[in-house]
């Protein structure tokens, strides 16, 4: 199997600037093209273990510099989906984060064979913990700690994919997105982690991405069964509390965190209800990562 790592940085850059690469992430293939050096740098650093395929691609993405007068004084990057610009251009320095956000958008708006929850999801022993949360709740920090030190497998940091006809969770292991203070927290807590250069002044503040563990990438076709739904909330200095949630509340809060629940209608309702019946929900507060990991180890 050919992987991104089989190409040198120079070869990768040439491929991206030319015919592109067919990058396989989970069950999706993206044809990615870009002449921008920082995109090649990010792919080279963080997607080393990912397969390269040929032929069909689910998504076609180009990251290019728009041809405007501004390009000389304030260079920008535009993301093209199927050749069309779908988003406002961003400063050129944000090209690699824009790829990550763009690929998230592709999956969350197009992959409707799945109920898609805005949530991290990690697995141990075939059973998965889903961590839905709004931005700023400490979801990604907790996710990075669980897969970096806690022995959990990364299914996804951002998109939980519940297959409608099977009721199982499909992995989409990709780099973990950290923001602001979380970058230094994880750099210290998981010293061996491979992290991209921090990019400042994005709409999310300063962002950096952590490479997914190689084992999680290698096992990207192994599904998992939902077992827990943990709504995390980071509060500096607080001790761990985990309050069991009634199923109806777990259902309603999960539905609010879904990208396509309304679109899927009755099918989405049934899939979500089945997930809730198989899972125990918790309202979870933590302030210290060691204590948070101990809680996850204690899950029944």
């Amino acid at each position, binding site marked *: 199997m050919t992987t991104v790592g089989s190409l040198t940085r120079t070869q990768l850059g040439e491929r991206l600037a030319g015919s592109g690469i067919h990058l396989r992430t989970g069950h999706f293939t993206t044809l990615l093209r870009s002449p921008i050096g920082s995109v090649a740098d990010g792919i080279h650093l963080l997607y080393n273990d990912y397969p390269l395929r040929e032929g069909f691609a689910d998504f076609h993405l180009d990251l290019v510099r728009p041809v405007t007068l501004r390009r000389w004084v304030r260079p920008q990057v535009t993301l093209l989906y199927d050749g069309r610009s779908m988003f406002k251009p961003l400063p050129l320095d944000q090209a690699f984060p824009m790829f990550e956000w763009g690929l998230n958008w592709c999956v969350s708006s197009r992959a409707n064979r799945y109920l898609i929850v805005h949530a991290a999801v990690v697995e141990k022993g075939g059973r998965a913990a889903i961590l839905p949360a709004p931005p700023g709740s400490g979801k990604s920090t907790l996710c990075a700690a669980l897969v970096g030190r806690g022995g959990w497998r990364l299914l996804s940091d951002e998109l939980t994919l519940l297959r409608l006809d099977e009721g199982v969770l499909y992995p989409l292991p990709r780099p973990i997105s950290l923001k602001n203070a979380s970058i230094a927290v994880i750099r210290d807590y998981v010293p061996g982690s491979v992290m991209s250069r921090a990019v400042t002044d994005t709409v999310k503040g300063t962002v950096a991405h952590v490479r997914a563990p190689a084992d999680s990438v290698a096992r990207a076709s192994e599904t998992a069964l939902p077992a827990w739904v943990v709504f995390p909330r980071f509060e500096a200095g607080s001790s761990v509390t985990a309050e069991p949630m*009634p199923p*109806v509340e777990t259902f309603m809060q999960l539905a609010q965190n879904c990208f396509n629940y309304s679109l899927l*209608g*009755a099918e989405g*309702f049934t899939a979500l*209800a089945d997930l*809730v019946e198989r899972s125990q929900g918790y309202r979870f507060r933590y302030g210290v990562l060691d204590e948070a990991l101990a809680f996850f180890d204690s899950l029944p």
Partner: protein
Amino acid sequence: MASSWRLVPGQALLHRGWDDAFVLYNDLSGDTHLLSDGAMAMLIALRDGDVTPDELAAPEVAELLATLRQLDLIEPC
């Protein structure tokens, strides 16, 4: 208040219940509602024709019926 009610036609009452509380998918609006066991029991009774006009006219169910109507789950007939 009407004394005869029925489910809005096309309402399949897709629901799931845990611990005396229910979630219900409204086929017509696409909304999901959180319902008590009493509300769910009323909907099922209306679907099954298992409730009499006298029971529907009782003052203690008037507020419940008004709420279910507001949610486009039932209508007078």
